[in-house]
């Protein structure tokens, strides 16, 4: 039986301490870490019964579509809506100059991206920007047709697409309404403060190299497109919304219309999310249209639904787009002395991290300097897509492998030599592990050893361009590494209720299901903590019980919510055991006998969903029997005068919460302890330039596995997405007109089932995570780290560096001199 300190509050504060090793792990794990479990959402999703916002249909519902700017930078001078208004089936037209629309409103902006303040702008800053007019009609087709009947006089303006050119003071202004001094956003500049002295570091180096990476625009491609439905029920709002952060959306909504809709009058449905890879919810993509739906719904007295089309969903991209300039100094033995990197970042919505952040986080490199220059171009916003760490891990990967290549060393050797944290070596880091109560283990080496064995690195790795296969293709291998991360966004609150009648446990928390099966992980924790079979625990996150539960952001599903749900489970368990030794239920005239008379709570435990006496396990009572006696009359009034022996009992319920500590900045109070290592094997066809990824190996030290299949899903899923990004994905704009040329899934390729060979998923468990049971996150990192492997593997295969991603066949042929 786990020990329950008498002072709950004290114990809770201990649990808030996630700067150290978990002091309260379980001795045995029954459900935690097992293969499976059966997905809670599985049947609904496999049978097509799962509901998504895109599927919502309500009686009398109108469909709203938006004008998309045909120019990359233009202002509406005049707009005549009369022809559109005459089209049968058009019910409402909102114009950009409608007096009811505010100049400024909060749609979830983080750092004031352009166009973010107004629900419907009269100026477009990128081609395809929803702006100018919103039309609601009886069908999407009618609304679409009505948009084509708008008569608009435009003022076309000069535009920028290339970030380096846009940074030139002579370049035209991308956004003159807000940034009149140039296209360089001061608030978006992030320069790391002194971490050593790079000049000194370069002077100490035996060799200094410089290189460039150009990462072109790419995007998230969420299967369910941004969409929402607004329905007024009197003065109360009923909303369906695709949004990764339902509580944040609700908070923003409550501030609209002068703050006239209190939180408790907003009924927010959170259907399943057709994938959501993070950041796009931070721009006005989804909330500004929802605002317009609210206005139109009020005017028409009808529910209003909007869906962005596939092309409109392309106007926004991943926040690694930009041009990177990197300078590295190193010793002849592979020890890196200094890195100085600058990133010209395109339209980054919150470019608050320098591009060398990962080198702070998990290396001993003593002298670092990094800066991002956020440059406004006339393209859509770029946001964290899977993770905002994309630029940082790409830089880290390139730094290590460039150094290894220059020295003719195995990149693994260079990685192990420079492992550390915050500029300190492994000796310092091991001391940190010890002081914080962790077992001292070499996470990187453990990951590398397992990964190397899986891909047969020692047997297969070779010098660049040195191996031709019998099929005529060149063979390439690549390795990269990083720390494993769960970062510090937000806290989580979760409640747990033991149901009347059958004793099953229900987890209550307001979040969204985006497919990572975290809900099951919480159930596994509750089952093990309560002593329940897994089938007796359920979490349906698709309704709003009001508890702000951490969303899938920042890989903090488990490190925050895991603590919260564990704490709730422990409090509930204590309540169960206390009530088992107290009068089971109350009647008007007294109480029932305790279920376990003359015993103390600590003399009981729960196993397989039954309370039992520790000294005599044959004395037991299933939870269903226990709660049934206590509440069998349900909420009906108890009345012994009628001769009915009815009773009532206190609900078995608890809430708990977990604020997050730590964070990703150079002054992180939690040095990174867990590592990950990734390996890739490819073949390159020198005639066609095609790259065949024949194997990927992921070795992730997640500290402690909770939901094994979910972790593996993030590994192979992230690997495929990562390879897809690095090999295939690129949004192309016409340099002459500024128009996007491939905003559809035929011309913008994402990986299919045929694009990758086998993926080995290895999970390492050192227990060195700061989360419950020693876990750390896994959701964001693989899809973020893996893209960098592709150019490395191509280098190993061909001996040529390709400095632009994606690495497409034409670039390979060019590098091979076969254009």
């Amino acid at each position, binding site marked *: 039986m786990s020990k329950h300190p008498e002072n709950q509050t004290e114990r809770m504060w201990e649990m808030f301490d996630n700067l150290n090793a978990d002091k309260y792990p379980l001795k045995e794990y029954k459900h935690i870490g097992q293969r499976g479990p059966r997905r809670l959402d599985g049947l609904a*999703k496999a049978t097509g*019964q799962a509901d998504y916002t895109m599927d919502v249909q309500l009686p009398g519902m109108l469909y709203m579509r938006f004008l998309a700017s045909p120019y990359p930078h233009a202002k509406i001078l005049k707009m005549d809506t009369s022809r559109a208004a005459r089209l049968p089936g058009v019910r409402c037209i909102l114009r950009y100059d409608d007096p009811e629309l505010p100049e400024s409103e909060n749609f979830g902006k983080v750092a004031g991206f352009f166009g973010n303040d107004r629900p419907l702008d009269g100026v477009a800053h990128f081609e395809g920007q929803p702006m100018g007019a919103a039309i609601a009609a009886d069908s999407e087709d009618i609304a679409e047709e009505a948009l084509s009947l708008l008569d608009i006089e435009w003022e076309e303006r000069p535009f920028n697409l290339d970030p380096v050119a846009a940074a030139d003071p002579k370049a035209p202004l991308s956004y003159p309404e807000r940034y009149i001094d140039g296209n360089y956003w001061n608030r978006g500049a992030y320069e790391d403060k002194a971490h050593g002295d790079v000049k000194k570091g370069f002077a100490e180096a035996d060799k200094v190299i410089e290189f460039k990476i150009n990462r072109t625009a790419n995007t998230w491609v*969420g299967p369910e497109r941004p969409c929402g439905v607004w329905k007024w029920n009197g003065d109360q709002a009923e909303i369906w919304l695709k949004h990764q952060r339902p509580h944040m959306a609700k908070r923003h909504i409550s501030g609209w219309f002068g703050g006239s809709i209190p939180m408790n009058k907003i009924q927010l449905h959170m259907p399943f999310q057709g994938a959501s890879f993070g950041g796009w919810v931070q721009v006005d993509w989804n909330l500004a249209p929802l605002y317009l739906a609210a206005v139109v719904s009020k005017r028409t007295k009808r529910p209003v639904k909007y869906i962005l089309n596939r092309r409109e969903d392309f106007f926004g991209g991943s926040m690694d787009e930009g041009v990177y300039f990197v300078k590295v100094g190193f010793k002849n033995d592979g020890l890196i002395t200094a890195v100085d990197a600058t990133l010209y970042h395109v339209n980054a919505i919150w470019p608050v991290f320098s591009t060398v952040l990962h080198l702070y986080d998990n290396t001993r490199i003593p002298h670092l300097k990094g800066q991002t220059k956020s440059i406004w171009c006339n393209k859509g916003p770029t946001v964290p897509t899977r993770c905002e760490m994309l630029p940082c891990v790409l830089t880290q990967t390139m730094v290590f492998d460039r150094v290894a290549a220059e020295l003719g060393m195995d990149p693994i050797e260079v990685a192990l030599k420079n492992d550390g944290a915050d500029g300190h070596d492994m000796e310092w880091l091991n001391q940190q592990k010890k002081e914080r109560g962790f077992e001292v283990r070499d996470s990187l080496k453990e990951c590398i050893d397992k990964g190397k064995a899986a891909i047969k690195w020692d047997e297969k790795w070779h010098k660049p361009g040195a191996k031709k296969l019998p099929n005529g293709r060149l063979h390439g291998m690549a390795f990269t590494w990083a720390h494993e991360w769960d970062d510090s966004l937000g806290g989580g609150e979760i409640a747990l209720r033991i149901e009347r009648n059958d004793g099953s446990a229900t987890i209550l928390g307001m979040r969204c299901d985006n497919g*990572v099966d975290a809900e099951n992980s919480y159930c596994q924790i509750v089952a093990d903590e309560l002593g329940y079979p897994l089938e007796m625990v359920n979490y349906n996150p698709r309704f709003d019980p009001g508890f702000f539960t951490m969303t899938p952001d920042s890989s903090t599903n488990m490190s925050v919510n895991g603590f919260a749900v564990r704490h709730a489970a422990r409090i509930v368990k204590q309540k169960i055991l206390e009530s088992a030794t107290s009068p089971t239920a109350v009647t008007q005239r007294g109480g029932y006998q305790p279920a376990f008379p003359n015993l103390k709570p600590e003399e009981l435990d729960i196993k397989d969903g039954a309370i039992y006496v520790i000294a005599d396990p044959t004395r037991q009572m299933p939870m269903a029997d226990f709660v049934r006696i206590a509440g069998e009359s349900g909420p009906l009034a108890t009345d012994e005068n009628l001769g009915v022996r009815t009773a009532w009992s206190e609900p078995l319920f608890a809430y708990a919460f977990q604020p997050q500590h730590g964070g990703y900045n150079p002054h992180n109070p939690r040095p990174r302890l867990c590592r990950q290592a990734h390996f890739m094997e490819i073949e390159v066809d020198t005639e066609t330039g095609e790259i065949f990824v024949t194997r990927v190996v992921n070795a992730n030290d997640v500290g402690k596995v909770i939901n094994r299949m979910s972790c593996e899903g993030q590994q192979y899923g992230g690997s495929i*997405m990562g390879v897809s990004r690095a090999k295939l994905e690129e949004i192309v704009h016409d340099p002459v007109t500024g128009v996007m040329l491939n905003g559809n899934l035929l011309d913008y390729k*994402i990986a299919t089932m045929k694009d990758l060979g*086998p993926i080995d998923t290895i999970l390492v468990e050192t227990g060195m995570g700061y989360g419950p049971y020693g876990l750390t996150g896994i959701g964001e990192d693989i899809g973020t780290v893996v893209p960098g492997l592709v150019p490395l593997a191509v280098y190993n295969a061909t001996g040529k560096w390709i400095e632009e991603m994606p690495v497409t066949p034409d670039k390979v042929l060019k590098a091979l001199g076969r254009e």
Partner: protein
Amino acid sequence: MSKEIKSFTCPYCGESHAAAEDLKGHVFKSHKGRGLPAPEGRIKLTINKSEYEFHVKPNWTLYYLVHDKLGLTGSKQFCDRGACGSCAMIVDGRPVLSCMMLAIECGGRNVETVEGIAADGHPLIECYVKNHAMQCGYCTPGFVVSSKALLDSNPDPTEEEIVEALSGNLCRCSTYPQHPIAVREAAGMLKAAKK
């Protein structure tokens, strides 16, 4: 001035005749006893073993008819048009992209959706759940439908054949490695059930 009618077309078979009397004779001779031909846009079809009759507009897709009009929302729209397989349905035994097929072409056809596959208790459903062949789940019904069509025509597919058959279905969560496992397992269950 009224336009001169040069030919008279049979509403049953489309045959042309020079005069109204000729057409009349033809109808009596060839189509006697049949009811009036269906008005334009009226179709009868079978969906998941049930008979339906609709009056469809010429621009309606099969997806729109089934998803929006019939309310069987298991089929999903991911790519918007013709690229992802999420709206897959089986029409007369062949998997089709329902967003690319006009509803008006479906008169007399037999349509099977994920709801029908689930209602039949097909082992694919359980194998998909058990093997976590899904994450967000949005594309999952399309995969189930494509897999069912494969198993109908090839009850014991190799991994390569499964990959080939499902390579037209996109999954952004990239659950790809789990699908061949699920499909092979379902094939095994179907085989065992036949014995």
